[in-house]
């Protein structure tokens, strides 16, 4: 396929792996941010091609994994309302809240649907005017504006039975939190190419300049990932800290300005809790008051009185680059994709699920 085959080409993979091995002179820890990148690294076993000096750390860029238990509990509570159809992406169905997950609730009779796009939820609401359709809207900057496009379409059609339960995160504040840790191990970043396709590269430029780490905007195919690593290692060996775009075919410098305008119009920036990681200032978004008619938190208020039940999951420390899946006592025993104890074992792009499926811990 055009724009895929070249970036899975074995000759290019071998060339870049040899170039990396030739270039490395020191030990480096490089973090890929996005869960989609983590998945591809595990699937194509790219770590096996790297010299022992290069260690990959797997970052927090899986929104399914970092959505807090409290928000999952809120979604479960909304889905229990008999008039509600709760819809979301398939990945959200098995993420454990404090007591259960959406798939178990669906098995008990709740009307919960899996959809490919938030835009499909608008059609679902149009087809079910007597029901309340709530889309459990989870995502980083790549996905957030798609949810907002659905909101605007519902508004254009003057629909009153469509709302979003938002769990929206910003990537750059999490990267900043990681490099600010006193025991930070990250030397360089592979930034999430599809987030940058929306936001543009300004946030990466600020981060590289302020914290003196190279940031390489990187794609998702195996050749893209090795190319990002090669350019990151070239900079690290030269003691440079620049932003480079290694995914120029998809990421223009200024991103997608239409999507940015949608976000600026509809969202306020807030601090929020990342599952396993904790509170990060200015790292989330909520709908502005002018869109309260489409905000499920107002339509279906919820007070969470439950306390966190699973404290054994170490995924937060893994996503901060401090531990790896081999450090987890539950991995592959108490926690498997069939019976996940922590969120990163659920989504295919969660680091634990990717390692469970394609690698030894």
């Amino acid at each position, binding site marked *: 396929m055009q*724009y895929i085959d070249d970036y899975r080409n074995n000759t290019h993979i071998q*060339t870049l792996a040899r*170039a990396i091995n030739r270039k490395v002179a020191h030990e480096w820890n490089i973090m890929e941010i*996005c869960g989609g990148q983590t998945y591809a690294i595990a699937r194509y076993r790219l770590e096996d091609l790297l010299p022992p000096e290069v260690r990959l750390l797997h970052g927090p860029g899986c929104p399914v994994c970092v959505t807090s238990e409290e928000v999952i509990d809120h979604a479960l509570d909304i889905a229990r309302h008999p008039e509600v159809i709760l819809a979301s992406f398939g990945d959200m169905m098995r993420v454990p809240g404090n007591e259960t997950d959406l798939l178990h609730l669906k098995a008990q009779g709740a009307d919960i649907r899996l959809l490919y796009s938030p835009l*499909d939820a608008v059609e679902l609401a149009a087809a079910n005017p007597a029901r309340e359709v709530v889309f459990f809207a989870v995502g980083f900057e790549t996905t957030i504006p798609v949810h907002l496009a659905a909101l605007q379409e519902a508004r254009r059609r003057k629909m009153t039975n469509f709302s979003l339960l938002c769990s929206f995160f910003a990537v750059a504040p999490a990267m900043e939190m990681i490099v600010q840790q006193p025991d930070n191990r990250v030397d360089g970043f592979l930034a999430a190419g599809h987030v940058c396709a929306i936001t543009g590269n300004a946030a990466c430029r600020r981060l590289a300049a302020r914290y003196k780490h190279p940031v390489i905007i990187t794609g998702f195919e195996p050749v893209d990932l090795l190319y990002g690593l090669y350019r990151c290692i070239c900079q690290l060996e030269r003691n440079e800290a620049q932003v480079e775009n290694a995914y120029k*075919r998809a990421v223009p410098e200024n991103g*997608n300005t*239409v999507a940015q305008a949608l976000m600026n119009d509809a969202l306020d920036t807030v601090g929020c809790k990342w599952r396993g990681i904790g509170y990060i200032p200015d790292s989330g978004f909520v709908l502005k008051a002018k869109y309260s008619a489409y905000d499920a938190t107002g339509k279906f208020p919820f007070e969470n009185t439950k306390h966190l039940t699973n404290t054994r999951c170490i995924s937060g420390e893994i996503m901060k680059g401090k531990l790896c899946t081999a450090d987890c006592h539950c991995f592959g025993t108490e926690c498997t994709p069939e019976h996940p104890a922590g969120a990163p074992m659920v989504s295919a792009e969660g680091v634990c699920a990717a390692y469970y499926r394609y690698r030894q811990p």
Partner: protein
Amino acid sequence: MCLAVPGKIVSIDTSVPELKTAKVDFGGIVKHICVQWVDVQEGDYILAHAGMAISVLDEGEALQTLADFDAIARALESD
């Protein structure tokens, strides 16, 4: 979650100006994708994410990147 897939625009439907859609061919699988955020014509390649075209793929930049792989390969051989 942030998966985005390249596809070729087959035809564009502008009958709803607020929500332009296109038939997009993903290696033989054709789906309707919203193209409201991108300036595209038939034959262009886009990246689709959750039903939305988020970016137009730039052929010139893609060729430049492939040329860079060849340059890296040549440099390895001449070392």
